[in-house]
């Protein structure tokens, strides 16, 4: 029987992150983690980390603002 086609590295990383997210911190947004993974995948061979860090910082900030707003509105 032929071995099934393996997942691409990016898909595998996302799949593992998602499994651990569900198990450990289901409150962390799936999309946010997937977007962090995409940024890291894009920049994995760069020694200069300033650009990916800036992108992740902005991304998390956006999710944090949305959640803060959501929490305020739900009160």
């Amino acid at each position, binding site marked *: 029987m032929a071995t099934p086609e*393996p997942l691409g590295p990016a898909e595998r990383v996302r799949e593992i992150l998602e499994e651990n997210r569900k198990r450990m*911190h289901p409150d962390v947004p799936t999309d946010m983690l997937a977007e962090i993974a995409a940024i890291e995948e894009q920049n994995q061979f760069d020694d200069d980390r300033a650009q990916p860090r800036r992108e992740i910082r902005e991304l998390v900030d956006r999710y944090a603002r949305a959640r803060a707003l959501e929490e305020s509105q739900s009160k």
Partner: protein
Amino acid sequence: MMLLKKIEIENFGPYYGTHELEFNGDVDELILVYGENMAGKTSLLNAVRWCLYGEAKDRAGGAMSTRKLINGDAWSEGDRRASVTLEVVDRGASEDTAVRLKRQRQAKQSVADPDAERDFTTHCDVQVGGNILAADKFDDTVNSMLPASISRFFLFDGELLREYEELLQEDSTTHARHVKRAIEMILGVPAMQSGKADLVHLLKEASRAYNREAKKHADIEESARAEEKIEDEIDHLEQDLESLRGQQEQALGDIRRVKEELLKHEHLAESAKGLAQAEERLASLREEREEKRQSRRDLGKELWRDVLDPRLKHETAELEREQARVRKALSEKHDLEREKKSREESLVASECSTCGQPIPEDLRLREQSRVDKIVDRLGQISELADQSRLDQLGTTIRRMREIAPAGVASGIKVLETDLAQIDIKIFKEDRRKAEVEADLRGVDKKLVPDFEQKREQLSKHLGQVEMGISKAEEALVEKQNEIKAHRQAMKEKDEPTLKHMRIARDLFERSLAVYEASVSDLTDGLRVDVEEQASQIFRELTTDKTYAGLRINENYGLTILAKDGSDVPVRSAGAEQVVALSLIGALNRLAARRGPVIMDTPFGRLDRQHRENILRFVPTLADQVTLLVHSGEIDPERDLEPIKGKITSEVEILHNESARSELVEKA
């Protein structure tokens, strides 16, 4: 995914002037480039590598100098520059982007006799989608398509195969760790590792920002300050931990090196022991030889007896015969004298002593006649029946027997055989001793004790470092728990800015926890994938159907498995090459980036069946494969049948009389 469209070479290696190699720039492309040894196959591979990364490799795997790269004829004519231009397609998920990369290196006008690297300058041009970018974007553009760190899996030669074969044989060396890192790079592990490192950095940043903001609020200021203080302590602890881990790594490396030295020396210690034993055996053999020689000399003194032997034997026999005669005469004399005495006594008496009857006269006369005959006989043997002669004969015979030879010559012969055997043993032992002495020549006798002492010191140091690490880790956990307590105290503060910053910090913290847990999950899963893919490829490539597959270890080293699941410990050079190709094939299937594969002389040590299997496999290795082969590896008429429909173009490197190479498309 990067695909080649065109390679343009100018004054590079054996290529004088400008030469081009065109591709379809599409998937499922297989190009065969034929060229004899020294024609310029490796230079073609080097041209691509040099254009992308600015480095070309010589045959030993070292970096080639620019002076050697520039074509000799062009140089002689004063054209002291070389350039390579690559036109590629960067195929994205939704669209293709045309990329043009040109690297040129030329001698500085001001230098009369350029040779060192500082005597040359580099010009890099990069165009993406028809737009000219600044030269400093060249490396970024290359990096986004085919980073240098994973290029070894795409642009590879016999050297790469050898590196992998070494990895398969020995997985504990520095070199093996280096290859393991490269493998993890191509498999995309850095995406997870750098994600974790980035989140550590961002969490710290977010946490500090939150505390700065919290200090502005009187009710939680104290907790914020306390947390800030703990974070500073954590920073120090982390720095200490990093330094200790560096020391641990250093100590482990040093211990490994000392152990390697000791292993080397273990062999020398064995040799020293062997030398002492050889010397002991030699001394004993020489002593034995001397004893045998002495015995031979002693026996030699007795050899005269062997010369006298026939005469002695004859004389002794004569004497023994005489002795027998004398003994017989003496015995007869004794018997006769007794008879004479008895008869004379009868003659003196007048009647028989038994019956008392008077003895008749005729009988008396017969008795007298018998006595007379006895007296005559006694007279005859009186000379022979000589007791003193018998005694003399006995003494003489005994003496003659004493001087008779006791196998002197045969004894010497046995000794000669023994001595010849001892000489052979001494010769062999001498040769063994000379070999061991050659091993030990120039070896410092203090080496082993010094290394053992060093190992002991290092182990002690490592123990201290590891204890320090353990303490620092415990302290870190303690500090992190303290931080949690302060955070709990500050959590109730529901001021909008603080709330947003707290949520951001918590998101970083939780994302980091997810990443930390995921790194080992990824590497474990990748090893399983590599093993599965490599095994599948290996089964396609190997001609030995008793092999079931491959098993991977921590460092991506692969062991061949037999059908019963046992390891196959010994494998041929051809099998090593097939295992290495299986690993490379698996890595390309699982790679974090896809790109064109250029293989230089990949069939060197393979038999015909393996070559055929690999040729069938090669088109599946990557989307675009270029094979650089020589006539000794592939016979186009005979070997290409299995992939005939898959070859998209064939190019020949012609090497003309003036040692210039050119690329010619085969009809």
